[in-house]
């Protein structure tokens, strides 16, 4: 295709994806409040719009119009930079995520993916690993002991669980023999003897478990949300933040959740694979639907876990990461390698 | 197409900056960072040469350098922490007693 079409399509896809993502973030928040509310015998947001569906918009407006105050004694440049770093890297990592096969528009078949990097997985890992800086710097720059502790915890925890995360993925990589997400998904097409889908979750249950745990820790979600443990450190690393900056951290967290969900779907649940039927257009859109559905499931699980589990102690967190999760991932890796070698 | 010498010059400058940082910075952590900077400069020349001579060994070397750098960072920062515990300072100019 000509270069301009390539660029044009990229721009359009980027805008589209960004819009969808932000919306998703917003409604994930709404969903969380609703679900947790019901779990706790509450209604959750109801006032703004039917079922409080407009609540996210209200929140956004509120964030936007709140006074953006910067406390004295903070280290300004980094205090300002930290939320940007967090949100930017959170949003960037979505760029390499494929939502489905390519679709034909105007005679060109356009891949449903912003950038098809053949080491996409590594890229995502790298971006998430850089995302740590957002939290850490926020905690340090806001010159407040709670924030600092939060930042320290965040950086330590993220760096620790990154290892388990990477190792838990290696099993999948061995099976699919590629780092390109698209190829990984393609490798999961088809079924075992007819009816069981050829998904990695069935061959890599331990790997999936490790991934899930590590991902929860990476995203600082319950039960691993030590960096913002409100009972100990007022609000952790974003204690000093308010208004839009706080919103950025918020968005970053949920965007990361979505990225994780996408990765889980792609790596373990066969991505957009699913029953295809109906007319051409439907056939083109169904994969995206399946993909979204799977992501929704994961988000729900996130919320569910939050509603259910208590918070770890920090030493328990570290012990779990280093003494249980990492060895488990290693065992899984070795087992997979042996199995493949046969 | 970029001449090889550009890469080499770039890496050389980075390395020189590292050395200079080692020379003029007082903070022990910064000095440590300048060491990492030197290593990065070397890595760049490794990769450039690898591409120039079509020898992947260069990139493998980069891995080893990285691994060593990581290990060094771990031990070095642990040492820095230990030093800070005893001297209460990170300024190398004040850490000039050979034993304490």
């Amino acid at each position: 295709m000509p270069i301009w079409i390539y660029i044009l399509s990229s721009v359009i896809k980027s805008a589209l994806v960004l819009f969808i993502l932000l919306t998703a973030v917003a409604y994930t928040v709404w969903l969380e409040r609703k679900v947790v509310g019901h779990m706790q015998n509450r209604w959750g947001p109801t006032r703004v719009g039917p079922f409080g569906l407009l609540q996210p918009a209200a929140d956004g407006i509120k964030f936007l119009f709140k006074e953006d105050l910067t406390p004295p004694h903070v280290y300004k440049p980094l205090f300002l930079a930290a939320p940007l770093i967090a949100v930017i890297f959170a949003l960037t990592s979505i760029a390499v995520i494929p939502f489905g096969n390519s679709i034909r528009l105007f005679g060109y078949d356009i891949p449903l993916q912003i950038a098809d990097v053949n080491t996409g997985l590594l890229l995502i890992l790298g971006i998430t690993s850089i995302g740590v800086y957002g939290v850490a710097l926020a905690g340090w720059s806001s010159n407040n002991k709670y924030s600092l502790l939060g930042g320290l915890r965040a950086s330590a925890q993220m760096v620790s669980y990154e290892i388990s995360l990477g190792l838990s993925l290696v099993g999948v990589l061995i099976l699919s023999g590629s780092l390109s997400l698209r190829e990984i998904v393609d490798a999961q097409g088809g079924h075992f003897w007819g009816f069981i889908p050829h998904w990695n979750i069935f061959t890599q249950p331990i790997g999936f478990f490790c991934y899930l745990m590590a991902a929860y820790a990476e995203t600082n979600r319950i039960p691993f949300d030590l960096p913002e443990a409100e009972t100990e450190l007022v609000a952790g690393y974003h204690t000093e933040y308010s208004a839009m900056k706080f919103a950025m951290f918020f968005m970053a967290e949920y965007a990361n959740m979505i990225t994780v969900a996408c990765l889980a779907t792609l790596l373990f649940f066969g991505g957009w694979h699913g029953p295809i039927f109906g007319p051409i257009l439907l056939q083109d859109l169904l994969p995206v639907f399946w993909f979204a559905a799977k992501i929704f499931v994961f988000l729900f699980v996130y919320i569910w876990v939050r509603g259910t589990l208590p918070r770890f102690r920090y030493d328990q967190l570290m012990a779990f990461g280093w003494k249980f999760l990492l060895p488990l991932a290693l065992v899984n890796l070795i087992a997979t390698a042996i199995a493949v070698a046969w | 197409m970029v001449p090889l010498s550009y890469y080499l010059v770039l890496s050389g400058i980075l390395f020189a900056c590292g050395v200079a940082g080692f020379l003029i910075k007082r903070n022990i952590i910064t000095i440590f960072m300048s060491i990492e900077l030197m290593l990065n400069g070397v890595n760049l020349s490794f990769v450039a040469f690898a591409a120039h001579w079509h020898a992947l060994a260069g990139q493998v070397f980069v891995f080893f350098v990285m691994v060593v750098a990581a290990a060094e960072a771990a031990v070095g920062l642990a040492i820095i922490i230990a030093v800070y515990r005893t001297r209460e300072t990170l300024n190398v100019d004040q850490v000039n007693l050979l034993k304490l």
Partner: protein
Amino acid sequence: MISVHLILFLAFGAVALAGAINLLAQTHPINSALSLIAVMAALAGEYLLLGAEFVAAVQVIVYAGAVMVLFVFTIMLLNAGVEENTKGSKVAIMFGVPGVLIGSLLVAWVVLRHSGTEAVAAGALPGSPKTLGSLLFHEFLLPFEITSILILIAIMGAVVLASKPPTSPAAPTLTEVVD
């Protein structure tokens, strides 16, 4: 595409240089650390230009993602402030800086004189993970194993060194050693 390649090279190089110089210019270690991260990211870009995509990814993950996080962590832990400007050593100024200048000038001269103008194509040498892996596990197996032993020793050393009091900050120092 030649021009694009050159432009990208110059851009990344400019970032790297700016970062390196900023590393020297800044008086606060955290700023130096961030500028160093910038340098590493830029170098990752250069690696991509050279086709060493895997190296680039590892550069980002290990260096930018782990080693530097460790640095930042240490800075935060020790709450390192702006470095005071002490008159430490005349030697470093009298001999060191001229030495650096002379040495780098000599090297630059040699490089420019002898390396000629052979161009390196963009992605000249695609270092795909597969090939690198096979190389690493076949020809460089022994160094690989030795390195792993080195890492093991480094882990233990870090733990021993940093874990004087019971509240040990050593746990994170282990992390990047492993990835």
